């Protein structure tokens, strides 16, 4: 089998892994080497599904001894199999890298023979790249659950980032769909990597030139919608992983049906892309906006609101928090205003040192007034051009697409009933607001 065919098979088998970022580490090449890394990450292309391509994302092999039900590579699936030799893959990587096609390599693998053997193959590939080609670009390696910890450690010395995919967010789901795996077999190596990172950072304090162990940290991925796990469960788990395991990123992947199985959604099920989207939004709120998981979802609301994003949803449930004076509010409060992002909040804090901000100037700072105007005041005033009775607050908070979907889904009467879905216990009850929403929904139907 030639390299073309191998590349096709092993790319096809790797593409459901979503992580493709090359971020988290800044590196320069010493003389005689090749490659660098930028902490912000660099996208080299975008595939026709709109996803960033930063790394050569392939499997070492798609031969697998395991039989995870949701996976295209599972043992019982009838599919063409291939395996790269370490040399082939290293050559491919370096040649793509020289042409600036990629930022580096994302290497994962099915379990060939046994976890240790697979891990050794991956190590050899990385060794050729790092030692023979003196490659300093980005490498993300998947840890193979069950591999010897000495091997995991060696892999970690060669890679910038490691990940172990949780895939299924609960033990029940794992039992059902991944009989060869358990929570334990996933979390143990994750903990091991975390400890090694910590030890290593202490070494680095002591010896400046101590070799680095996964300097860009570790990440994981969960499949959304293959099992009945709720958004609440997933988000809580995510928060726990950031806190307890110090993960750098948690990725979500809408389940794409690849097989008919009574435990899984049928093959014609649409992947729950909107849920994936909401989870990423919430994840962003956890990492950069100072939100806690239990502020976004709780036992009463276990799923995300399909019509407004989690931040707007929070704001609608906490109207007593608003309106907020943009000229005074602390940075952390500004971040909670719909229509104000990290960048515009920073700009507000900078610009207001020099002048008192007006609605006009907020626009220049990148604030989305269409959303933010309901929640802020400037110089003690609401936006002048904005009359609340004529405005459709909810409409303005929905994205264009959602609004259309909403219109399509519900007839007029249903739409009003559907309001209960938003379940907005407005703490300060501005009556007009409720009426407004009803009115605006009627108008647009």
């Amino acid at each position, binding site marked *: 089998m030639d*390299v*073309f065919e191998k*590349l*096709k098979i092993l*790319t*096809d088998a790797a*593409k*459901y892994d979503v992580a493709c970022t090359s971020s988290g580490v800044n590196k*320069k*090449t010493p*003389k*005689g*080497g*090749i*490659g*660098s890394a*930028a902490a912000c990450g*660099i*996208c*080299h*292309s*975008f*595939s*026709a*599904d*709109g*996803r*960033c*391509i*930063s790394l*050569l*994302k*392939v499997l070492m092999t798609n031969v697998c001894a395991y039989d995870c039900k949701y996976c295209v590579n599972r043992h019982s699936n009838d599919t063409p199999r291939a395996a790269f030799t370490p040399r082939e893959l290293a050559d*491919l990587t370096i*040649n*793509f890298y*020289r*042409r*600036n*096609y990629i*930022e580096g390599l994302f290497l994962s693998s099915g379990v060939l023979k046994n976890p240790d053997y697979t891990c050794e193959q991956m190590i050899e590939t990385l060794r050729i790249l790092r030692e023979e080609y003196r490659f300093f670009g980005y490498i993300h390696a998947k840890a193979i659950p069950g591999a010897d910890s000495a091997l995991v450690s060696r892999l970690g010395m060669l890679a910038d980032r490691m990940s172990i995919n949780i895939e299924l967010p609960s033990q029940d789901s794992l039992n059902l769909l991944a009989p060869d795996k358990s929570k334990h077999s996933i979390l143990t190596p994750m903990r091991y990597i975390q400890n090694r990172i910590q030890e290593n950072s202490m070494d680095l304090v002591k010896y400046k030139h101590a070799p680095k162990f996964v300097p860009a940290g570790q990440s994981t991925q969960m499949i959304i919608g293959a099992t009945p796990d709720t958004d609440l469960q997933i988000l809580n788990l995510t928060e726990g992983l950031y806190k307890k395991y110090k993960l750098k990123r948690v990725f979500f992947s*809408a389940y*794409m049906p690849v097989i008919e199985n009574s435990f899984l959604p049928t093959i014609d099920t649409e*992947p729950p*892309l909107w849920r994936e989207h909401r989870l990423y939004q919430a994840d962003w709120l956890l990492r950069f906006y100072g939100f806690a998981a239990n502020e976004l979802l709780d036992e009463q609301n276990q799923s995300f609101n399909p019509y407004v994003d989690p931040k707007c949803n929070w704001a609608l449930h906490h109207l007593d928090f608003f309106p907020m004076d943009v000229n005074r509010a602390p940075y952390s409060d500004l971040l909670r205003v719909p229509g104000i992002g990290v960048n515009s909040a920073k*700009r507000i804090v*900078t*610009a207001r*040192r*020099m*002048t008192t*901000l*007006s609605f006009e*100037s907020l626009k*220049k*700072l990148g604030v989305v007034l269409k959303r933010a105007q309901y929640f802020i005041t400037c110089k003690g005033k609401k936006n002048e051009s904005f009359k609340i009775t004529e405005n459709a607050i909810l409409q303005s908070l929905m994205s264009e697409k959602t609004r259309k979907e909403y219109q399509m889904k519900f007839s007029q009467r249903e739409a009003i009933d559907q309001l209960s879905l938003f379940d907005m216990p407005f703490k300060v009850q501005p009556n007009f607001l409720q009426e407004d929403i009803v009115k605006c929904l009627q108008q647009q139907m």
Partner: protein
Amino acid sequence: MPTTANVVYQYDGSFDGLLCSVFESYDKKEIPLDIVLPDATQMMLVPIKNIPTDSGKAKRVLASIPAKIGFLALDFVQHAFLTCFTQKELYILLFLRLGYRHGANVMEMLADDVVHTMVKAVRHLDRESHLFKGFIRFSIFNHILVAEIEPKNYVLPLLLQHFCERYPEERFLIYDKTHGMALVYQPYQSAIIPIDDLVLPEPDEAEESYRELWQVFYNTIEIKGRHNPKCRMNLMPKRYWKYMTEFGNTQYNHRKVLKGQDGLLKALSHKELF
């Protein structure tokens, strides 16, 4: 207070020339209606004042910027000068005038019209140069890495450090077709030089097969069930596609050596690019 004078400055297009226009503006206590390049269309009804470039004056203005407004402001102005914003010269003058008055604080006056306009132009430049770090595609001819781009802004100075750090042991050339300039590098030397045309030789077998391998990868990595060309277009606007290997632009990829001897071919046949 300076007055807006009924005059347009004409400078030679260099950064030093622009600094001399700033000098002139202070010297004459006037603000011109615009600052233009020599080849600007002469349809204007306003008198044009030619500003000669004087390195002494330029140096004085240059030194005053970090001293009075700070290094951040100098960096900002130098970036603004690389943008494709048509009135960048006049705005740089207005910005510096603000800066001399308010000091380093000018960098925080984000709600001011002049500052805001410049920030927007610089953001556009930064974004474009960042995208090119990823979207540039090299072909390898005779061990030399060669790429072409058609940027809106003059991004080469901003790409220099990135690619020199990425490929310290390679020899490479990035040709900016829009501005007729090229970034050339050989181990541990770089320069940006004018080039009027670039003619590429036929790719060899290895080059051809890596291009095809990349196309195989690109076409396979898409998850068909999530096809979303609109999203791709937003993140990677079509104007970048022209030189990207994954779109198998045959015209470009299989272009023959048709034109004369100038440009790269000459450079490539010489052992040294400098």
